């Protein structure tokens, strides 16, 4: 059997998601945005910190969503890109005294390059084989960060402590609140960019590749270019999320970026709905809050409780938050008719 036949007979890795249903309606988006902007005024700093982490993980899940939901490629190596972004920011801030806001685009560019280069050899792989290759990347990253000749920069196993920025222009808000609004601005910008990317020519190319690689190449889509491009973009966004994460947590260490993080992000994407961008934030909420709930139920069996909750979600709503949203929409439509 030739390779071409092999690909044709293979079931598509990701279910096709229509372009329109990738985003929320204008009205709903504005309501969510307003809620996110107003919320910090009413809650404690600790909750603001949790919300910041929610945005950051949401961004990382969004990046994976572009890769998997958009171009149909799997990755279990997102923690590696996240780590590179986090370390880029930490090293630039602590060793070179560069302003934190400037480190974000640098981390993005570095990770884009890293992801693009990794995407090159990964081109030959698909499905589970690609997942395995990226898995290797995620396993290797913590060890690479511990390497002796990098230790001068990375702090080795001890990690690096990052200074949290104060609000600029003497704004009367706490560090946490400032960082929240800063992250929110970055996340909104990247979200709009991502939506537009998927609606553009490149986005259509991604989805064509996802739906049928051979048909896409027959239509004149440069499969190799767009596949690596998807990897690069996804890595860049993950890297920016990592940068924000380093600033919010104020610490980077190899132990923060293990394979567990990569699996969490993958989980977040599935729970949020593969290919549905707004679901990223729901997925992030799942990976942040559900372990806490599980721990509240039983400390000794928190892992088992988490497993049961995850199983329930996958069993009851296999398409994640997207399915819930569609159900909600249909229900609202029915009510309006009556």
């Amino acid at each position, binding site marked *: 059997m030739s390779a071409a036949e092999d690909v044709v007979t293979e079931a598509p890795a990701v279910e096709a998601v229509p372009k329109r249903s990738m985003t929320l309606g204008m009205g709903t988006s504005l309501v969510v945005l307003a809620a996110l902007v107003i919320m910090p005024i009413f809650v404690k700093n600790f909750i603001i910190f949790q919300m910041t982490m929610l945005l950051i993980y949401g961004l990382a899940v969004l990046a994976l969503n572009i890769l998997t939901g958009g171009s149909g490629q799997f990755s279990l190596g997102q923690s590696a890109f996240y780590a590179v972004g986090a370390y880029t920011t930490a090293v630039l801030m602590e060793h070179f005294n560069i302003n934190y806001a400037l480190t974000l685009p640098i981390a993005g560019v570095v990770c884009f390059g890293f992801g693009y280069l990794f995407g090159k050899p990964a081109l030959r792989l698909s499905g589970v084989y690609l997942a395995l290759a990226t898995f290797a990347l995620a396993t290797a990253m913590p060890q690479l960060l511990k390497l002796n000749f990098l230790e001068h920069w990375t702090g080795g196993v001890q*990690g690096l402590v990052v200074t949290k920025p104060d609000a600029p222009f003497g704004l009367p808000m706490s560090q946490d609140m400032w960082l929240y609004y800063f992250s929110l601005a970055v996340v909104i910008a990247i979200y709009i960019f991502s939506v537009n990317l998927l609606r553009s020519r490149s986005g259509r190319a991604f989805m064509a590749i996802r739906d049928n690689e051979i048909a896409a190449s027959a239509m004149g889509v440069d499969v190799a270019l767009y596949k690596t491009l998807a990897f690069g973009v996804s890595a860049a966004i993950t890297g920016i999320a990592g940068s924000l994460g380093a600033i919010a*947590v104020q610490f980077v*260490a190899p132990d*923060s970026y*293990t394979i567990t993080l990569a699996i969490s992000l993958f989980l977040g994407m599935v729970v949020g709905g593969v290919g549905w961008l707004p679901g990223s934030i729901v997925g992030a909420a799942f990976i942040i809050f559900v372990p806490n709930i599980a721990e509240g139920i039983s*400390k000794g069996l*928190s892992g088992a409780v988490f497993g049961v909750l995850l199983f329930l979600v996958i069993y009851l709503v296999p398409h994640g938050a997207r399915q819930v949203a569609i159900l909600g929409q249909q229900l609202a439509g029915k009510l309006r008719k009556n």
Partner: protein
Amino acid sequence: MLLERILRTTALVTAVATLTSGAALAQKKYDTGASDTEIKIGNIMPYSGPASAYGIIGKTEEAYFKMINDKGGINGRKINFVTYDDAYSPPKAVEQVRKLVESDEVLAVYNPLGTPSNTAIQKYLNAKKIPQLFVATGATKWNDPKNFPWTIGWQPSYQSEAQIYAKWLMKEKPNAKVAILYQNDDFGKDYLKGTKDGLGAKGASMIIMEESYEISEPSIDGHIVKIKAANPDVLLIYATPKFAAQTIKKTAELSWKPLQILTNVSISVGSVMKPAGFEASQGVLSAAYAKDSTDPQWSNDPGMKRWNEFVDKYMPGADKTDTGMVYGYGAASTLVKTLEMCGDDLTRANLMKQAASLKDFAPDTLLPGVKINTSATDFAPISQLQMQRFKGEKWELFGEIISGDVASE
């Protein structure tokens, strides 16, 4: 007349009584997390994740505080111990500690486990002036009262222990060819540094091999074969329990008998020496500061008797060979001692002051002669160890109790 006099006396008595009780009230001082009835203490532990074996420490401490509460608490106040899972992940540790401080409003964070997690929360707690008491890690950097006056360690640091081994080697085997097997993380690298510092200039000629392994490796056998090929006569084993047992076992299987020195982290008779095989373990050297619950020489020791009673009553069914339970008992009793010393002044500043004023405190589980001492300039509570040799089915202590203070840089 008489009535007037009585009245006057009564008035005087009342006035005096009011004054004294007023004075007593003034002495009671509280910060967030402490009250007349309760002291709220926060903690994070890896109950899940790669280091979940240490979770038993948190459970032991919880049980210990329950025992204290059952006995009436500390100066009439009950300890409310709030402990969360950080899964040994620094970002999670930050989240959980912020929850403890800002949502649960604890008085202090006590015995958080792991060097990465503690590093992640240290700056935050010091900025908020919240005590980070008796951290459960052997890194050297916790003894730094000048830069981090709100952080204090507990156990002897890895580096000071390694220096003790280095000094012993220089004295007893100055011409040894030394190989070092270490875990590739902060724990292993601290030992490596301590050994090199201890050997000083002689280190370059004495150390013929440094071999590291990752905690994720299933077996250490390949490393041992490699080390044997270099033919050293001293093997320093800076490995966690599972790997330490494998190392001792493998050297015996290769019928290779170098002098082996084992880190204190892996000296449990029940979980290391027995699985490695008692025959293979003969002559292994190490250093200790606490009693081993599986060592028969302590079966009549009053301190370990109290430990046994505690485990039987408050942790029925627990595995007594687990060193985490001895550790948790010792650390918890240190906190209770510190809180007792605070009296009615339960402010964070006073708690830190008392934690830095422990004098010759000897918890039930520490070796005879090892005492906890702290001062405004010494934030390393336990800094004494004694060398020991494995003989028969137990450790035999030998030599003096050695103090191995290493100041933070």
